[in-house]
Structures are given as C-alpha cells and as structure tokens.
C-alpha cells in the first residue's frame, strides 16, 4: 500500500499534497504550525502597515479531503529505513517522501542580530515581527532606515529591493523622505546579483530616493550604538534597521548525513528533484540545494514536477524563477532558468497588475493547484527566458 508523506505545509508542501489528493492519492502532511503565512505579505505588513490577518490562514483550511494533516514537529528523517521521527516521539513510515521544510533562519550567526530583531522586528521572521517593524517605521521622523543582508544567499533575491521601494513610498506619502534616508546595503557587486537586472533596478531605486551601498555583507550589529559593521570593513549608522538573516537547511537530523550540503540543504538531482542517491525521497523548494533562487514559484513548480514523477511521468524541473520586483505602481520580474541567466525585463504597470493577480490567486493556487496549472503553464511558456531572451 502506497504511503506518501509530505513534510512541511508551506508553499511547496501544500501544492504537492493537494495536487496528489486531486489525483486520488492518500497523503499525510506533517506541519508544526497551525497557520500558513504568505511570506511576501511580510513586506506589506512591515512597510505599508497592512494587517497581518490578510496574509495568514489556518493550515487546516488549505488542505483538501484526501490529505491527512498531522500537527507535529519533524525531528529526524532516516532515508535508509524510510522513517520520519517527530519531536514528541511519534514515528511515521513511508513509501514516498517529499521534504518541503523550507529554509531555517539563523539569527545567531551575526552578533547583535537576535537583539536587533527582538527590538525592531524585520520582514523575514514572521507576521508579528513584520508588524513590529511597522510600529517603528511609523514613529520614524528623522534618521536612517537600513535594509541589509547577512549573506548573499537568501529567499527571494529582490526582497530587500522591494522593502526599500515600499518603505520609500510610505515615507514619501508621510512627507518624511527628506528627513529619513532609506539605505539599501547589498552583499553584491552591483545593485542586484545579475548585472542585467542591476542595470534595470538601479535607476528605479534612484528615482524612488533610495541610497544604495554595494559589497556590504553584515558581519555584526551594535544595536545600542545603532551601527552595522560589514565583512568588507565598512560601517553604517541606523535609526531603524532590518537585516535579512543567514539561511540554512531545515533543522532536522537526516540519516545519512551525506545528503545534506555544508549549509544543511538537501542535495537533489536538479532536474528530477529526488534526494541524491534515493528514488523514493524528494526535496522541493527552499529546503533543497537546487541551484536556482529560493522562491515560492520555484517551490510550486518543483512540487508539480515531483507529483508528475510520482505518477510515472518523466517531468523535469528547469529551475525557472519569476521573482517580482515591486516598485511604486510598477513591477518587473527576475526571469531565469538553469540554462538562461536573467533576461532584461523592464518595469511596467502591466507587470504590476500581473503581480497583483498572482498575489490574489495565491490561496486558491495552493488548494486547487490543478485548476491553476494550465493558466500558469501558459504564462511560463509565454515568458520562457529562451523566447524572451531579447527582453520583455
């Protein structure tokens, strides 16, 4: 009797479990949290004051009949014996395993970081932390808001840019952009890892009144002094700051340990997404080491590939990304795949409308992924980096 176990009810896990259920499979989904958070929502909570309730839903409302939802915290996975251990001692067996545990945020790697996030909140660690950031931004009448990162590898590469655009927009509306500087400190050579994208984003940042430092990787934070020090030997003072934390693989003990890379991400075949050396276990989304951006789109598309493969089809993941960069009234997308570096995609109002539609479809696309599949497929084919290589 087939027993499919999905670990984690984030974007990837919910899409995989619900898609399998729509094809008649019995699935068990293990999740430690009662609520699912639409993570991009943290940007709108932190920098535009949206209510957290807009971006959270109970996990139980997001699973279809046919999916058995188990509340529990995964502590260990034994790939050889096909066992999953929960922290409370329960043990699950499986015939097929899908690991969708996301990335773990490490606030201890950078001295002062834990203190910073406890005091000011941020836009990565949860809806409450995002609300805390908003309560401080609202009070900020003069000084400097710094948005920075502790490592070049983090989910949604344009997230700090979006944060800066949204914050600058809010401050402008409050009439405070003259007295509050929005400063984006990035751990890259240019304004974005890809130079093609950097050339498109840089003038927009300038237009929005955002100041940028490049080659600035946060090494330590002195919260009382209001100062951030970088690995590259620079420093910057802040009145309010949000630093994107170091990301690591899921905090779960995995046997054999060789399937994890040095940062704890699960090593997979980049096309088939099976765990290296195992054909009955897969890893999707942020938890895997697939060499592409860590985004919801990637997790969603990866889940579709894995479900196809479980059904016996030879689907392959091509590493497609579609990260939105939202600026004032406009948007661009970072479009790339394993074989194509990001193509030039200019900012437009139409793309902003598309992004609004993607956000509006989020909850429905988690629960009824098979309904959205043809629509998303058409979009991804139309905007394949190979066919729009000249730009969009």
């Amino acid at each position: 009797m087939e027993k499919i176990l999905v670990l984690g009810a984030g974007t990837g896990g919910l899409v995989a479990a619900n898609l399998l259920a729509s094809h008649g499979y019995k699935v068990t989904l293990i999740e430690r949290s009662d609520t699912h958070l639409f993570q991009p929502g943290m940007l709108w909570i932190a920098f535009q004051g949206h209510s957290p309730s807009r971006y959270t839903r109970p996990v139980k409302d997001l699973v279809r009949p046919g999916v058995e939802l188990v509340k529990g915290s995964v502590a260990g996975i034994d790939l050889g014996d096909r066992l999953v251990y929960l922290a409370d001692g329960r043990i699950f067996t499986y015939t097929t395993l899908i690991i969708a545990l996301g990335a773990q945020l490490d606030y201890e790697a950078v001295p002062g970081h834990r203190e910073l996030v406890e005091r000011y909140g941020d836009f990565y660690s949860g809806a409450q932390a995002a609300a805390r950031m908003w309560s401080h931004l609202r009070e900020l009448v003069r000084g400097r808001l710094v948005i920075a990162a502790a490592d070049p590898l983090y989910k949604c590469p344009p997230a700090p840019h979006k944060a800066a655009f949204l914050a600058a927009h809010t401050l402008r509306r409050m009439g405070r952009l003259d007295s509050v500087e929005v400063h984006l400190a990035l751990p890259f050579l240019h304004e974005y890892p890809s130079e093609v994208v950097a050339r498109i984003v840089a003038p927009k940042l300038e237009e929005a009144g955002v100041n940028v430092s490049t080659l600035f990787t946060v090494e330590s934070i002195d919260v009382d002094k209001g100062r951030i020090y970088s690995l590259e030997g620079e420093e910057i003072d802040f009145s309010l700051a949000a630093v994107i934390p170091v990301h690591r693989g899921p905090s779960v003990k995995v046997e054999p340990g060789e399937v994890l890379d040095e940062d704890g991400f699960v090593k997979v075949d980049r096309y088939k997404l099976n765990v290296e050396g195992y054909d009955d276990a897969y890893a999707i989304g942020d938890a895997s080491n697939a060499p592409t951006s860590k985004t919801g789109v990637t997790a969603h598309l990866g889940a579709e590939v894995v479900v196809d493969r479980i059904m016996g089809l030879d689907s392959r993941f091509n590493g497609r990304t579609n990260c939105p960069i939202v600026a004032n009234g406009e948007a661009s997308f970072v479009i790339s795949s394993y074989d194509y570096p990001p193509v030039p995609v200019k900012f437009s109002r139409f793309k902003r409308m598309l992004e609004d539609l993607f956000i509006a479809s989020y909850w429905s696309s988690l629960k009824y992924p098979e309904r959205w599949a043809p629509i998303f497929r058409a979009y991804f084919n139309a905007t394949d980096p190979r066919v729009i290589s000249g730009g969009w």
Partner: protein
Amino acid sequence: MQARDPLEMLIEELGDPEFQEALDKLVALVKALNKSGLLDVLLAMADEEVVSRLSSMLMTTGTMKLADNIEALTRAAGEVAQALSEPVEPVPPSELVYSLRDPEVLRGLARLLAVLRALGRT
C-alpha cells in the same frame, strides 16, 4: 480566548440584515445569469481543457509584450489619430528634403526604421 461555536456564529450571521440584503442580491444575480443562459456558458468554460486552450491562446509571448506596451501604443495611436484629423497640404518632392530637417520627423523616421527591423525579425 474561547473558540466560538461555528453554528452559533452562522446563526448570528443569518440574523444580520446586511447579510440578508447581500444574499437577496446574490440570488437575484444567479437567477438572472441562469435565465440569460450565461450560467451554462460559464459552467462549460470551467472545464480544464477549455481553460487550458483559452489561456495558451490568450497568453502568448506576443500578447504579453503587447499588453506590456499598451500605454506606449495607445499614446502613439492617439497622436497619429489627431494628426490625421488635421488638414495637410501636399508636400512637393522638391520640399521633401526640408521636412527632414524637422527633429520630430527625424525621430519618427528612426522609429519607423526600428519598426521595420522588428518586422524583419518575425
């Protein structure tokens, strides 16, 4: 906080006059849609294959680029339409070369060349 009984919440909701009014309108809308036959069309369209064909027809590289540039296109079309409505005198060939000194004409010519190049690519 004590979790509330869902049935209790539903009963409370039903008693809300705002809810009653909304429900009446919804029923009227559904009836009207049914009578006009539109509901049948919508039901037929909610088929996976229809959605698939429709979305792959509507969302192509061409339409995505078109929609992205719709503002520039309508702006240009608006200018052209206005120019068409204004009276013009025929330009004698001997004076054609003077028109080419006009920077707007030169820019327009550059645009036309770019359009020709794009057409050549397809």
